[in-house]
């Protein structure tokens, strides 16, 4: 349905005094850590937004549903919440986003997945933030060639998870390796694998000069530990999902601090950006003792994207779903003062940005990482066009 109140056109999820937005998150499954950080940060954002008067005289309410990373559960949860929602600032899991894709499109819901597989591109209603995994890996190879002296003919390892995350990263690394004349040594692992000894041995056997890492943080730590113990001293360049602050409490911390580089679009909390510093302070006040990591950043920015879209839609007097999406898509250089490169949301077949930070793990830094290189778009990344899904 739809309606008109106070001169503002409204759609599902918008009533006289509230706007409901929903999160399909994972609080009990494998990505519970991510889900918790993102959800709390989003709560923080919407609380702040409401404290500042809300949007269009309405409070914005965040409805949270846990799917435990189970696609079928997520689909069921979606059916329940979709009719009541104006937008989805959080959907965890690319399989889940993919599964919901056609329904999101027919429901015209602005959706921001917490997943960065390039295969999610190509829908007007789905907004990926920052760089995609493939872009990250392209930038990573460029970085390794430039700074770590990899030459044409060298071998480079890529350990990746099965599934969208790994496949997307692999698309990038394959492209970049071919362009740079490197020989890619691929190792695929499963989410449940914990011990990377065999993979490390295979890399050593192949004589790789560097390793790209697109696995879970824990698997990454295992790999780093084993390679170090084997005496294979090579640099690692990792996807943003292959590092977590918690790893710095484990014995592999020194190895990580030495030769581990993480490609991410998220501004590290230790960066000298006022907006980020304020966010760090607010978050720690609201959720004392909770880890401050990229999930918080990602949650907050994605909530902000929706918040800004709502504000713009309100200004355009159109709070229907289509109105919200149109408002969102009008942003060509989105920047809310949280660092990083400006993002282009006006087109949906390409990533919002091709420039990401390169950060290094650092125990002493707030959030566990410090900036190694400011966001920059490598030439290789410029020439890369992800095949849209």
């Amino acid at each position: 349905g739809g309606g008109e109140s106070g001169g503002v056109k409204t759609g599902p999820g918008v009533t006289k005094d509230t706007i409901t937005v929903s999160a399909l998150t994972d609080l009990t499954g494998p990505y519970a850590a991510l889900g918790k950080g993102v959800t709390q940060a989003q709560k923080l954002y919407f609380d702040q937004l409401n404290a500042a008067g809300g949007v269009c005289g309405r409070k914005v309410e965040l409805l949270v549903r846990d799917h435990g990373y189970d696609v079928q559960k997520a689909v069921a949860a979606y059916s329940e919440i979709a009719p009541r929602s104006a937008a989805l600032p959080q959907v965890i899991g690319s399989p889940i986003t993919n599964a919901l894709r056609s329904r999101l499109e027919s429901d015209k819901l602005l959706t921001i997945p917490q997943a960065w597989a390039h295969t999610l591109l190509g829908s007007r209603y789905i907004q990926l933030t920052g760089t995609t995994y493939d872009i990250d890996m392209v930038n990573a190879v460029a970085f390794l060639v430039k700074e770590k002296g990899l030459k044409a003919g060298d071998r480079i390892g890529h350990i990746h998870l099965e599934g969208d995350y790994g496949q997307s990263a692999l698309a990038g690394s394959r492209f970049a390796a071919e362009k740079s004349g490197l020989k890619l040594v691929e190792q695929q692992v499963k989410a449940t694998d914990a011990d990377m000894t065999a993979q490390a041995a295979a890399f050593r056997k192949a004589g790789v000069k560097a390793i790209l890492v697109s696995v879970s943080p824990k698997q990454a730590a295992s790999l780093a530990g084993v390679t170090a113990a084997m005496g294979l001293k090579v640099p690692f360049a990792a996807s943003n999902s292959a590092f977590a602050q918690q790893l710095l409490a484990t014995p592999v911390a020194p190895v990580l601090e030495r030769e581990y580089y993480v490609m991410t679009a998220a501004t590290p909390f230790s960066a000298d950006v006022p907006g980020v510093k304020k966010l760090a302070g607010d978050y720690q006040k609201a959720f004392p003792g909770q880890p401050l990591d990229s999930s918080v950043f990602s949650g907050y920015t994605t909530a902000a994207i929706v918040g800004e879209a709502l504000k713009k839609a309100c200004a355009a007097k159109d709070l229907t779903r289509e109105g919200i999406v149109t408002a969102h898509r009008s942003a060509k250089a989105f920047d809310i003062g949280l660092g990083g490169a400006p993002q282009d949301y006006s087109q949906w077949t390409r990533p919002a940005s091709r420039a990401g930070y390169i950060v290094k793990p650092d125990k002493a830094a707030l959030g566990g990482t410090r900036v190694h290189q400011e966001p920059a778009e490598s030439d290789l990344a410029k020439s890369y066009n992800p095949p849209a899904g």
Partner: protein
Amino acid sequence: MTALAELLVNGLASGAVYALVALGFVIVHRSTEVINFAHPSLLLAGGYLVAVLHDDIGFWPALGAGVAGAAALGALVEFVVLRRLRSGSHGTLSIVTIGVDIVLTVEIARRIGAEVLPLGDPWGDRVVQVGGVTIAQARIAALGVAVAAITVFLLAFKYTSWGVAMRAAAEDRATAALMGVRLGRVSAGAWAVAGALAALAALFLCVFPTPGLDRATSFAALKALPAAVIGGVDSTTGALAGGLLIGVTEALAVGYQDEAALLRGGFADIAPYLLMIVVLLIRPTGLFGTRELARA
């Protein structure tokens, strides 16, 4: 050649850990004929205890506490849940353990949260080099512990009253009761042992080469299921053999995935299961399982 040797050795080493986990399944199955789906949660509990205690009381006492705690938890599960199910069939009991596992896992996972908890073990990331082959010390310890634990249980099952009582109770509860076997105690004992073994297995699952305990650690327990089966679910020796076999298979499949196209694309993950089917086709009760006895 070293490459092959290295793969084999590393396969054996990670196989030792599978063997320890598998042994937990086997013990409960052998003494109660229940497939213990709650094993992963016991594992998580044991590992968690060690992880939170080692800072304060040191590693070895923490390990002791973890083993004792997981044993107590196992016994508690038996006492609170399974004992009340006297009349239940083995199948029902197995399903109940799924429920138990869900409850325990949620609670422990909640406590672990997003952390990766190191267990503070003495081996650290030290490795041993033998003729160009690198093996983690922790893995050598795991192999030692697995072999020792399996020997102990093999002997205990065969030669102690406890073992005899256990097997009698597993086979025929009513008749075992007529022999004066204290059924409650026997099955609580089996669960306690399973818990203790789970804690040990957790230790080796979470030390180098893995960075520590996190909520996903329990998934690794699933890998041990084919190990238990290949060896024969009622055989302790089988648990060792099955574990080692799986470790080696996996290591080889990973190591040679570049050479053989067949092995690519995550083949290593299913290799254990293929191996399992082949074994079951040849020997339906597993390599070391006792054949189903049947005579009219």
